[in-house]
């Protein structure tokens, strides 16, 4: 049988060392503590928004909206992984923008090869391995941008950000079966798009 992957992806932005205390202070109205949290997680939120929206300006707007929503809602935050909580808010803000954009007359899709932001340097220990990883990320981002929107949203939320099917279904107002189908078809389409670079993923 195949090598089964872990269900929950490893968090890319690690939690703050004293995150619980900072959250408590932010929830009690400490604006500086809230700003500290947002500064720490802004790259995670922006990355999610960019992958959903494929537009840097819209992604920044969605992230900004998410911060405002989070500021209003942090008083009612009831524990759990703060990053996931914030990413859910960001995903909702991004999806709102996506739906508004769908209602407007369609504009030509951006070139998948263009507009991708620079990925942060992971701190290269092995330059060759890091170069290969960077290459893999770049190909993945391009392939993700080429997916149909419904499949991209489902794959990004589920596979990139580790949300479960129910969460994705709620967020996208879709049936559970529809979400599963979109994710599976999206993965298969990604595999096709990455056929030429298969060695990067199987190595």
């Amino acid at each position: 049988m195949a090598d089964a992957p872990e269900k929950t992806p490893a968090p890319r932005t690690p939690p703050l060392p004293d995150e619980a205390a900072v959250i408590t202070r932010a929830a009690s109205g400490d604006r500086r503590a809230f700003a500290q949290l947002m500064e720490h997680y802004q790259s995670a939120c922006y990355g999610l928004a960019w992958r959903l929206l494929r537009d840097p300006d819209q992604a920044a707007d969605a992230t900004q909206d998410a911060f405002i929503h989070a500021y209003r809602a942090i008083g009612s935050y009831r524990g759990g992984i703060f990053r996931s909580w914030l990413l859910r808010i960001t995903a909702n803000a991004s999806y709102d923008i996506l739906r508004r954009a769908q209602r407007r007359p369609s504009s030509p899709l951006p070139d998948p090869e263009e507009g991708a932001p620079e990925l942060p340097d992971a701190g290269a220990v092995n330059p060759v391995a890091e170069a290969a990883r960077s290459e893999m990320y770049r190909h993945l981002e391009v392939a993700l941008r080429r997916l149909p929107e419904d499949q991209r949203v489902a794959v990004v939320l589920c596979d990139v950000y580790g949300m479960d099917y129910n969460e994705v279904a709620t967020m996208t107002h879709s049936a559970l079966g529809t979400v599963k189908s979109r994710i599976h078809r999206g993965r298969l389409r990604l595999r096709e798009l990455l056929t030429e670079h298969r060695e990067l993923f199987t190595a």
Partner: protein
Amino acid sequence: MLNQDHPDDERLSALASLETDATSDATLTAHVSSCDRCTDLTSELGALRLALADLPDMKPSRPLQLLPPVESHGSRVDRVGDWARRFFAPVLAAGAAVAMVGVVGTAAPALDQLASGPSADRAATEEVAAPQASAGAGSEAGGEPAGLSASADTLGSTGGSVTGESDDAADASPRVNDYGTAADSQRDALGEGMDEAETSQQAASERSPWPMVLFTGVALMVGAVLLRWILAPRVA
């Protein structure tokens, strides 16, 4: 081993995500473990999932504002400005509606008059003409013919006395004058009636509430705009 009867690729994707219904499907797992093609595909999909889950975060394209602006609870002027801003649109709309009602109410009588103008004029003309016509008819029937017959009689019997004729004419003339006087008096009466009508119309228009309604609407609109402009805080 090669098995041509492969399961659906989406089922393999489900297996790659460790979905319970796929992992507990004995037929599916047995097939995958014995089929190179399905093993490879499931393995690739699993690796793809790992790669996706490993995608890094991204730096925002522009500096983001980490905190929303501080909500002002401050000065009284701010609160009044807030109040003015909140009520600006409803008051402006209400003012516009009241002004519209005022305009319609004020213009309605004039429009009515304009719409029924020709027929009303005709009626008034007929009213003025009717007494004159009756006066004229009276003079035709009893006045001048009688005078003429009298003069004819006078001519026929006496061989024609100009003075007699003139006397008759002189006799007839006061009758014509009488009719003229009657028409004048009727005209005067009609004029007085019209004056009264104008006066009553003027009084009615003075009593009409519509101009006041119009004024109130305009005042509301102007007031709303002024309040908004003066009191609302300037937001950059």
